[in-house]
């Protein structure tokens, strides 16, 4: 464990818990529900009392993928807008703008106007490779509307409460900081055989080290427990229980998919701190 974590302040913080809840809900909105589920919503999220153990494994320059991402982002938005604006209001300011853009690109190390292969890296950009070991008491409560399609389609719907607990992960994770943006990406389980082959996971300097097919790797989630609660009177009905089992299975897949698609390499969580920009840097 390299980081001293002040978990008392974090785990029970309503703002943090609510923002994670909101994130999960926004993810759930995007998922196509099977016929036996009508709605799916996270009603409660608690990080719990047990902090993750975080161990620093390497400190390096950020991977080129992050720079490419920033370059493509800025190519796609800002400079084109500038161009359009100025081509309509006469040709006079055109050259001026180009110069400004170039200067900006040199100064800020991004926002490249000219197509650049890579945005200029800043020596203070940094990337941590960390090992995250989590076996905490995080709980996620989900409300679902279960549709009973027996004996006839949509015969009745049942509110179901599910709780997800006992989440266990032990993964390698990249945390990169560059151009005031934070990138977090889960790489693989620490026991993944992909790690045996090499001494340093990032020494190749590129993403080639893990390939892009996340399915070939060991699942990032080591353990997870999903329990469901429905009205007592239906407990005896085998059909209801079967559907609930299916729902549990479905939710498990949903959960794993969110982690894989949103946060596992070659995807990442991107936090942009550019809003509170204070241009003065010593």
């Amino acid at each position, binding site marked *: 464990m*390299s*980081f001293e974590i*002040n978990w008392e*302040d*974090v785990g029970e913080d309503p703002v943090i818990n609510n923002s994670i809840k909101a994130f999960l809900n926004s993810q759930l909105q995007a998922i196509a529900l099977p016929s036996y589920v009508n709605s799916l919503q996270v009603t409660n999220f608690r990080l719990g009392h047990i902090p993750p153990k975080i161990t620093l*494994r390497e*400190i390096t*320059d950020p991977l080129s993928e992050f720079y490419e991402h920033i370059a493509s982002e800025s190519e796609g938005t800002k400079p084109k807008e500038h161009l359009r604006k100025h081509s309509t209001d006469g040709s006079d300011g055109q050259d001026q703008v180009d110069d400004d853009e170039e200067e900006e690109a040199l100064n800020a190390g991004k926002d490249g106007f000219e197509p650049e292969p890579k945005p200029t890296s800043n020596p*203070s950009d*940094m990337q941590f490779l960390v090992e995250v070991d989590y076996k905490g008491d995080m709980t996620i409560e989900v409300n679902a509307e279960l549709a009973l399609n027996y004996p006839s389609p949509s015969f009745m719907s049942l509110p179901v409460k599910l709780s997800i607990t006992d989440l266990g992960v032990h993964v390698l994770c990249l945390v990169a900081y560059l151009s005031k943006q934070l990138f977090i990406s889960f790489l693989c389980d620490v026991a993944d055989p992909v790690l045996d082959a090499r001494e340093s996971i990032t020494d190749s300097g590129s993403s080639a080290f893990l390939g892009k097919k996340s399915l070939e790797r060991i699942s990032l989630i080591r353990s997870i427990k999903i329990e469901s609660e429905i009205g007592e009177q239906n407990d005896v009905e085998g059909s209801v229980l079967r559907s609930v089992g299916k729902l549990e299975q479905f939710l498990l897949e949903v959960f794993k998919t969110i982690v894989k698609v949103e946060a596992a390499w070659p995807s990442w969580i991107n936090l942009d701190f550019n809003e509170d920009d204070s241009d003065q840097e010593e």
Partner: protein
Amino acid sequence: VEGSEDIDSPKFSQIDTILEKTYYNVDTHSPETLDWFNVLIAQTIQQFREEALQKDNIVHSLNDFVSRRSEELPQYLDTIKITELDIGEDFPIFSNCRIQYSPNSNKQRLEAKIDIDLSDRLALGIETKLLINYPKTFAAALPVQLTVSVVRFQACLTVSLTSAEEFTSTAEDGASYETDNGSGYFLMFSFSPEYRLEFDIESLIGARSKLQNIPKIGSLIEYQIKKWFVERCVEPRFQFIKLPSLWPRSKNTREEKPENDDMSMK
């Protein structure tokens, strides 16, 4: 590129006269050693070191200074504790001194070029914590121990005495010498860009499980120090220091008591 239009100006003839009357020909005079200067400087440094060691006061005063200014530290740094301070045991050696016209000055100004070489260990050790303020202030902390030592410095030093007129301050707050003490002479020095500054940087990062001597950390710190240095005293930037008056005054008069001579530095 020595311009000819100013060759008859009063300043040029002044300099010309000075060179003539000091028997110095800029083109033919051979470089001098500065052995005498090295001895005096070494003596001054030695005295400074002794004081520092006897009272153990540098570490304390530095720590005081740092803790007094801890409010100004960036958000991501915990208080800084100074753990080691090595003020070295060797002395800088100045050599190969020669006088030349300042480039681009149209022979209006003279300067001395001096080679400087220092092999020593000047080290500063600190202990702090990198604070992670996401998702909440002080959510996590990463202990950091650093020892940064300068082990070699080689450069060509340019020194001249000048009045302030021709130069502007690079400070943005307008803190300029021109307002209150614009008159008088200034000592101006700068290092040529082809300097050599070698570091030995040790790092230990982490609480219970630690990473040791990460190259990335070393290069990051080296970059920051060199940036600091270049922005202050590498050509085309100069350090500009007002010279005190050397006119003999009674308040500066002393009599014999076993004290070393020192008039070169504080």
